[in-house]
């Protein structure tokens, strides 16, 4: 068979770039870095090392965060931690409420997730519906021994009985506010801002049950 060059990259749709943040900055790049370092340590502590760990980022924002956490763990433990991505689009409970959405990459590490300790990584935890979808999606991929959840920001207002095991920052918000996470790998710079929700629609509005943005929940 001929070799297969990688098809054009689908991880960064052109419309993903978020314009310069409006509103109040709640985490600057150094805050984000410190939060991820802390999460990495907490994961290792909880798991008593890196054995059987698999990090699955939820696209879009969760994927670079999972990679950064994996790098930190490797730096500490001296072993490679498998990182992947898990798209939840088809498992969303609001799939039929909007036009069909583009899929995002699902990339399961070669050794799979059976009997592994999977840490799901996302940028913002909000209603919890994305995580429910992720649990369903994972169910079709394999059967981990344990599933844990790491998020950069927990902004509260859960619709479902879901909580994070590792949280970068708890951020009390009102429903009228929007949390925007920008990441170097995607947006060219790191930062978390919070703003009154004045933009209707678009990438930053509303709750994660109604945003159509792939990296929603921000």
């Amino acid at each position: 068979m001929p070799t297969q060059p990688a098809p054009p990259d689908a991880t960064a749709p052109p419309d993903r770039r978020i314009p310069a943040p409006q509103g109040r900055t709640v985490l600057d790049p150094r805050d984000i870095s410190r939060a991820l370092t802390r999460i990495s340590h907490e994961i290792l502590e909880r798991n008593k090392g890196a054995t059987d760990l698999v990090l699955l980022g939820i696209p879009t924002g969760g994927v670079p965060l999972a990679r950064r956490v994996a790098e930190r763990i490797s730096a500490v433990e001296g072993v490679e931690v498998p990182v992947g991505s898990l798209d939840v689009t088809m498992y969303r409970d609001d799939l039929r409420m909007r036009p069909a959405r583009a899929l995002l990459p699902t990339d399961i590490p070669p050794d799979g997730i059976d009997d592994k300790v999977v840490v799901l990584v996302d940028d913002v935890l909000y209603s919890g519906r994305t995580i429910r979808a992720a649990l369903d999606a994972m169910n079709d991929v394999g059967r981990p021994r344990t599933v844990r959840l790491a998020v950069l920001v927990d902004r509260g207002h859960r619709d479902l009985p879901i909580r994070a095991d590792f949280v970068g920052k708890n951020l009390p918000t009102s429903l009228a506010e929007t949390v925007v996470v920008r990441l170097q790998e995607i947006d060219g710079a790191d930062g978390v801002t919070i703003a009154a929700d004045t933009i209707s629609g678009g990438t930053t509005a509303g709750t994660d049950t109604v945003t159509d943005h792939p990296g929603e929940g921000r």
Partner: protein
Amino acid sequence: MKRHLLSAADLSRDDAELVLRTAEELRSLADRPIKKLPALRGRTVVNLFFEDSTRTRISFEAAAKRLSADVINFAAKGSSLSKGESLKDTALTLEAMGADAIVVRHAASGAPHRLATAGWTGSSVINAGDGTHEHPTQALLDAFTMWRHLGALDGRRVAIVGDVLHSRVARSNALLLRTLGAEVTLVAPPTLLPVGVDGWNVETSYDVDSVLPKADVVMMLRVQGERMNASYFPTVREYSRRYGLDARRMAQLQDHTIVMHPGPMVRGMEITADVADSSRSVIVEQVTNGVAVRMAVLYLLLGGSEPAGTTERDAA
């Protein structure tokens, strides 16, 4: 995307690339333990085949089932042209059954178009091959296969060789490949090129040997021996000598050039067995890719409240 997929011309470049990207994601499913996704749970997809095509039907059936759709196979063979009204009657029946999408194969060019526009049904209609008109999902899977091997298709040279006149695959491929920026050359004896082909925005040639060395992709079309009886060419032997792809011609190809065939092949007519089975041949892979591409089309048309990329304005 539009609500129906009747012609490759229905796809903008953005639409086509979205299908290819989606297919790429869905193709990885083949490597997973559970080859099933929930996206079309509760949706009904009807395979309405007025013409035998086990390959295409199975491909659509597998695609729909992997997306958890309910699939109804409706073979209405033999009733198509003898009594035209059966298309309408069937459509009304399917409408009553609540089909969300009708995948239709028909011997009459334009039958899917009629199904979509005559007011008989509100379902999405996907053309799975109509007469000598089009076969847009075949073109998508061909483009997908090329894209996986060659990357972006801009400026790539694709030679489509054979019975262009009667080929719905050639029509859909010419349209889609132009949309994706490829250069298309249709190669056939003059009798097997359609009248007015100069308006298709493609190159044409009667001489396969002058085209092959420059091609990145060579797609061989099926040529039915019966065409000989209608004087499209003198004999099968003369046809394969002038237009068939054999080892000697294959040696003229560039190293990266791939050989495709939409099937079913007539080995010894348009392609020799050693070429079909060579390492350049991606014919088997085309079949695998067919399922992924059809999953992508079904998902993008039926997965949401509207087809993907539908703005409020389009939906109105």
